């Protein structure tokens, strides 16, 4: 029996690694126990211009990758230039020079009039002569809907009756606008943005989500389809340790069981996702990975294998940036060890850019390298 490559972590980097292992013809098991930074992401895919591989994988995850910089809107009235976005986010570049409607259902966390003014005053809008105006949209049924979390509001809007009603309303409002911009409420289980676009006869899309919003939830849903299509085994469970077993590795789970692995790809996320944590004072390192590893962490290029005051590091940097830089040092093949088949990608790498496109790209690279162990 050939042991699989075990990927620890199911965010963008972990999924990319599993995808790459599967495409190389290897067996992959993806271990995941909870939501991480990918589930918190905004629907905006920051990072450098992506490779063809990244584009192909991104598309199957419901993302849109453009060869040129596109433009997307945020909840706070800003416009961002990016290569990738969740397909539900409205592509502003396509609407440059036109008139966009910012819908306003009257929610507390969304002021359509002020947002329209803010978008119109951005550098992008001024340089492309794109105008935004507020479009009132009678959508709320109760005071509770005015204040509920955006995710819950999205779940409500995608119920069949509400979705149908919304489609009917859209056919009547926003005359004279070329596209309609919604808050992050357009579908968790359904692709509501696409449905509404055809109902309204013009593009309908979202702004970026906040943490815990719909974009992250959609990633979670689409991920399962991608993994199933590539016959990656998705296993729920938390890893407690990675241990040496001769020339191979063993991933020990919280329940005490162990998974033998030809190679292990650590896609556990960075500090934000909980892949690394700060420890209380006392003996040992000031920070550690969320699971026991046979290798040491790196902070600012130095190994954290002795009692180190993280507070001291942070005071020296005058901020929390050192926490973000925490991770595992890897070589150009994403190997985190010179003698063990242990790889790291995404935010788990020390001091690398924390972006979706960087996570996908490094995940693919680490997956390929791990598959090469076969």
């Amino acid at each position, binding site marked *: 029996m050939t042991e699989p490559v075990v990927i620890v972590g199911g965010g963008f980097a972990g999924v990319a690694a599993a995808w790459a292992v599967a495409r190389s013809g290897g067996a992959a098991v993806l271990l995941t126990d909870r939501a991480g930074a990918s589930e918190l992401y905004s629907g905006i895919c920051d990072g450098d211009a992506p490779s063809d591989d990244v584009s192909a994988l991104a598309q199957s995850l419901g993302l849109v990758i453009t060869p040129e910089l596109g433009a997307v809107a945020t909840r*706070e009235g800003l416009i961002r230039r990016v290569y990738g976005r969740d397909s539900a986010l409205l592509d502003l570049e396509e609407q440059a020079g036109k008139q966009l409607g910012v819908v306003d259902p009257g929610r507390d966390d969304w002021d359509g009039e002020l947002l329209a003014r803010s978008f119109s005053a951005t550098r992008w809008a001024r340089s492309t002569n794109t105008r935004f105006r507020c479009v009132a949209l009678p959508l709320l049924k109760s005071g509770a809907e005015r204040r509920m979390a955006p995710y819950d509001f999205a779940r409500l809007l995608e119920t069949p009756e509400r979705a149908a009603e919304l489609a009917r309303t859209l056919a009547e409002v926003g005359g004279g606008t070329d596209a309609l911009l919604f808050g992050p409420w357009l579908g968790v289980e359904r692709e509501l943005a696409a449905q509404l676009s055809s109902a309204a006869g013009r593009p309908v899309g979202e702004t970026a989500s906040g943490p815990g919003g719909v974009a992250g939830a959609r990633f979670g849903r689409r991920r399962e389809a991608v993994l199933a299509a590539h016959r990656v085994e998705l296993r729920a469970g938390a890893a407690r340790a990675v241990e040496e077993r001769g020339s191979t590795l063993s991933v020990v789970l919280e329940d005490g069981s162990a998974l033998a692995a030809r190679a292990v790809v650590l896609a556990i996320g960075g500090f934000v996702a909980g892949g690394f944590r700060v420890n209380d004072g006392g003996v040992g390192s000031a920070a550690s990975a969320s699971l026991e590893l046979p290798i040491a962490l790196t902070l600012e290029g130095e190994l954290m294998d002795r009692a180190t005051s993280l507070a001291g590091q*942070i005071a020296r940097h005058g901020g929390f940036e050192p926490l973000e830089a925490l991770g595992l040092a890897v070589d150009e093949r994403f190997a985190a060890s010179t003698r063990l088949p242990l790889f790291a990608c995404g935010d788990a790498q020390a001091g690398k850019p924390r972006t979706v496109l960087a996570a996908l790209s490094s995940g693919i690279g680490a997956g390929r390298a791990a598959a090469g162990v076969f």
Partner: protein
Amino acid sequence: MSAPADGPFDRDVIVIGGGVNGTGVARDCALRGLTVALFERNDIAFGASGNSSGMIHGGPRYLTNDPDVTYSSCLDSGHIQHVAPHLLFRIPFLMPVFGSGLGARILLNGYDAFFSLYDKYQPLKRGKPHVRLAGDDLRRLEPGLVGGVFGGVTFDEWGIDGARLCIANAVDAVERGARVHVHTSVTEILRRDDGSAYGVAYRNRHTGEIGRVTARAVVNATGAWAPITAGLGGLERTTTPIRPGKGIHVFLDRRLTNYAIMASSIDGRQVFLMPWQNMSVLGTTDDDYYGDLDDVIASRDEVEYLFQAVERVFPAVRSARAIGTWGGVRPTLYGWGGNEDELSREHRIVDHAEHRADGLYSMIGGKLASYRLFSEEMTDLLAKRLGNDRPCSTHSSPLPGGAEAVDPMQLVLDGGMEAVTATRLEYRHGARSLRVLERMQRNPREAAVVCPCEPVTEAEIRYAVEHELAATVDDVSRRTRLGLGSCGGMRCALRCGRIVADARGLSPEQGTKLSLAFLNGARRRRLSLLSPDQARQEALSLASLRAELGPDGQRTGDD
């Protein structure tokens, strides 16, 4: 332009400093019909006034040596309650005695006798008399107290939001004709050939605008900055003899106790855990300070000093979530040889005529609770100099919002506000909460809650910008406590920046910069709290920012 040194003068009085004494003097002058200009290089209540323990106490510590000070403190606490009833809230204190046997009994008897004396002054400030409690009673009142309590006494004090107090004074002064310039540095105190002062030169730190204003008297009310300010007129530091004492507070995300509980620190000082507005406050330290006065931040050592003292009495304090720190520097009167705590909390007016600078005065020393009295003394001197014989009325003339009571339920019924929003709004604005309500009724969009932790509505943010001299997100936060709750501004700071930018006619990108300035400052003030839990919160807040601004936007705020 060269300003005339011999009149006519632009103003009667120039006040430098927008803390509680500066705004207090500006208001007192305005009430007596004197024309005033006030200059503040940061924001109103930026320094010690907005970073104090937030108490209008009766001065029990002076009882044994100087009971007159206790009398005047209690009397003035009564006056402040009268002019700003909405801003004060009762804080009952608990002084526990630990141990057993004769020693504990003697100590408890001592406290009992001491606070019996203090009781005589309590009616002046609507305070309740002290109560002597047995150990069992004490634990029933505060179940979180550590075992081994022998007994204790309660005593009554009043809390206040120091920043709101300063804003109320500044706004009242403006409404009575004073010109209040915030974010404007005085760059020089102008003096004639004979040394007398006749005005100031200033520079607005936001717009770069410079100018000169002349006046018949200049007041240096800059607290710990006093020696620096005196230097702007060419005076030696020793002309304003203060010994700057840094004090920090830690605030926790909720009220943990019914009483403010006193505890003893590792070096024998009295510190406390106090329920204050909707949170708990640990305070305070007192250490000589020689650092940057514009950047006073609690250190990890200071935070640990407070926690280790309080946890001996109230262990659960460690499991509560610390969400921020305050740091301020007291302009304590100079003294050599004593510990910081032993220095006098008295105040003093320096008439710089003795330094060849007639017409220039410095206010040094003092404390939040005595601001009104100190301001009255200063204004009496100014009035006499300027031939004004109107009596002081700051003890009887209501501060903005203090003239009449508003029932927060009225705001709920008339404005559809949630009860907690209404209660907090009424606390900050008193009767003027009706003006904020009017905004919401004119434009229902402004009823939206922007900061859900405090909570703060869009109407209140716009009100602060239009009527309370706020120009940045930090300023709004100082006036409304926006972004100081559990989420550390993660849910509201960016939106607040957008609203401030819109209200001031700035671009969205400039609004984002204001938000980031606030968030970065707040994060720096939390650095000293770093613990595993705290670090996770910071992580979430970073993720939130990144979602909005992207990987590089965090620093620059560029789109």
